[in-house]
């Protein structure tokens, strides 16, 4: 319902969007009738719920293909890109973040922090361009962009097409995750339970592993949820750099062509995913931290 309201508020009159600036009033009226945007808001809302319940997102203004099919095709690019990039980011960020915190007094601990500072200041698209310059143009190891037309029918080709984009996503997300992991680890190191565990005779690493991971992961998981969601939504820039036919380029194209059904479709699916990720992160936190389970009823 929120989404319905937002969509009605956001991109103006869909009929205007469909026809562009130079449309005559008659054309606009006709387009409104076709879209149903001349109906009262209540009727529009019921129609909207109706088609949502049937998983019908309409057809594109431009290609006249069903929106949902298009989204399905493009998910085959964006989902692997997001998930692989995210997993690689975790693989980079967690060990380095812990090292940066535990060894914060050493030069390499400091170096990791400095590099991650740089990492969050680098725009995604520039990193992508730099990686293309190095790996595709200078070293000629990987393609500079594009995705095989036949999709995943040739998995090797598809994977090579995704390698650089995945690396780009992973480095950017990894740099920002690293800082959270480092902060969380520092909190854990300073905590009373680690001191107690040490006093009771366990080694530092042992105490960190036995008590630190569970405690430190709770705040990290909510950040992970947000980062995963924004990785998915932020795919638009990476897809543009590497000319990948994913959800992001669909969104961009929909905006440029004022393709309202496609735009709405991408937004609905993205919002659902974002909510789903948030919900999953919440559940995971409750699983790890029993204290959160009792607070189910309590208002935030």
């Amino acid at each position: 319902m929120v989404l319905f309201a937002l969509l009605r508020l956001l991109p103006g009159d869909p009929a205007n969007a469909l026809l562009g600036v130079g449309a005559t009033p008659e054309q606009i009226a006709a387009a409104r009738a076709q879209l149903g945007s001349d109906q009262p808001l209540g009727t529009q809302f019921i129609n909207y719920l109706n088609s949502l319940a049937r998983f019908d997102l309409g057809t594109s203004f431009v290609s006249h293909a069903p929106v949902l099919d298009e989204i399905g095709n493009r998910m085959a690019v964006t989902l692997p890109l997001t998930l692989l990039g995210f997993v690689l980011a975790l693989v980079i960020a967690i060990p380095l973040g812990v090292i940066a915190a535990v060894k914060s007094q050493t030069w390499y601990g400091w170096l990791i922090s400095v590099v991650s500072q740089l990492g969050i200041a680098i725009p995604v698209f520039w990193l992508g361009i730099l990686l293309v310059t190095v790996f595709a143009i200078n070293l000629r190891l990987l393609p500079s962009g594009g995705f095989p037309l036949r999709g995943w029918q040739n998995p090797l080709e598809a994977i090579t097409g995704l390698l650089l984009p995945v690396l780009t996503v992973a480095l950017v997300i990894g740099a920002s995750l690293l800082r959270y992991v480092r902060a969380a680890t520092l909190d854990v190191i300073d905590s009373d339970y680690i001191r107690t565990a040490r006093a009771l005779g366990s080694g530092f690493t042992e105490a960190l592993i036995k008590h630190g991971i569970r405690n430190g992961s709770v705040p990290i998981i909510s950040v992970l949820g947000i980062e995963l969601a924004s990785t998915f939504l932020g795919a638009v820039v990476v897809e543009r750099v590497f000319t990948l036919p994913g959800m992001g380029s669909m969104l961009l194209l929909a905006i440029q062509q004022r393709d309202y059904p496609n735009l709405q479709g991408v937004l609905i699916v993205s919002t659902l995913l974002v909510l789903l990720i948030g919900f999953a992160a919440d559940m995971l936190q409750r699983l790890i931290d029993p204290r959160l389970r009792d607070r189910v009823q309590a208002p935030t």
Partner: protein
Amino acid sequence: MTTPELTIPQTHPRVSATLWVGLVLVGLHVAIALLSLVWTPYDPLGMTGGRLEAPSWAHWAGTDRLGRDFFTQIMLGSQIALVVGAGAVAIGGAIGVTLGLLAAFASRWLDDALAATLDILIAFPTLLIAMLVVAASDEANLFTAILAIGIALSAIVARLTRILAKRVLLLDYITAARTSGTSWMGIVLIHVLPNIWPTLAVNFALQFGLAAIAEASLSYLGLGAPPPNASWGHLLQEAQGTVYTAPIGAFAPGLALVILVVGINLLADGLRDVADPTRSAQR
């Protein structure tokens, strides 16, 4: 008998090296932007050299695909980055602080509704919201970009303001002020804003960096200010096409942007230490 000498702990905030480095980097950009208002090495639109020349004494960063001096364009890009950063933070700050205060003072029901909406909005990246705002407006220009990024940032500001203000509102002196009949407006202006201002200011600095990156991204996607505006994002987008022959073009504008954002982030870190000395002592 001598009185034992009291060592008074240093109370004035220590201005850290971080702050200085940040100031220098940001200052450099401001200076270049100001300079470019009155002087640039070449006419920004004039074809002053061959196409896609490599860097030389005459053209420090080479020339673009139309033979225009690239260094001049990058200098002009500073203006856009700074104007969009400042404008977007001003808009985002105004909307965000107002909304956040409103939520903090509002009834439970309205507050919950606002908080939930903000939580959802925050999950959407700044760039995406900005893209949608640009999509909603008729044409893409510099002002739309500023407005779009400002609106996108306002959710982050609103959420922070709400949390900070709620924390202040719980304190005893607010109860005292209320009992003594201070109006809502008075409480906001006298008690809440001065208390939350330092934290907000640090956050605004960080938002400035975010805004600069968002502007470059919008321009890169072709949704920013239209040419001949020399936004760094636009320069990079053009240079990507000619990266085989002139790699410098795909490098220099990005470097300029990163220097600006690193500078701002360092500045924010330094300001945070000044605003809240206990934090810097911890680490």
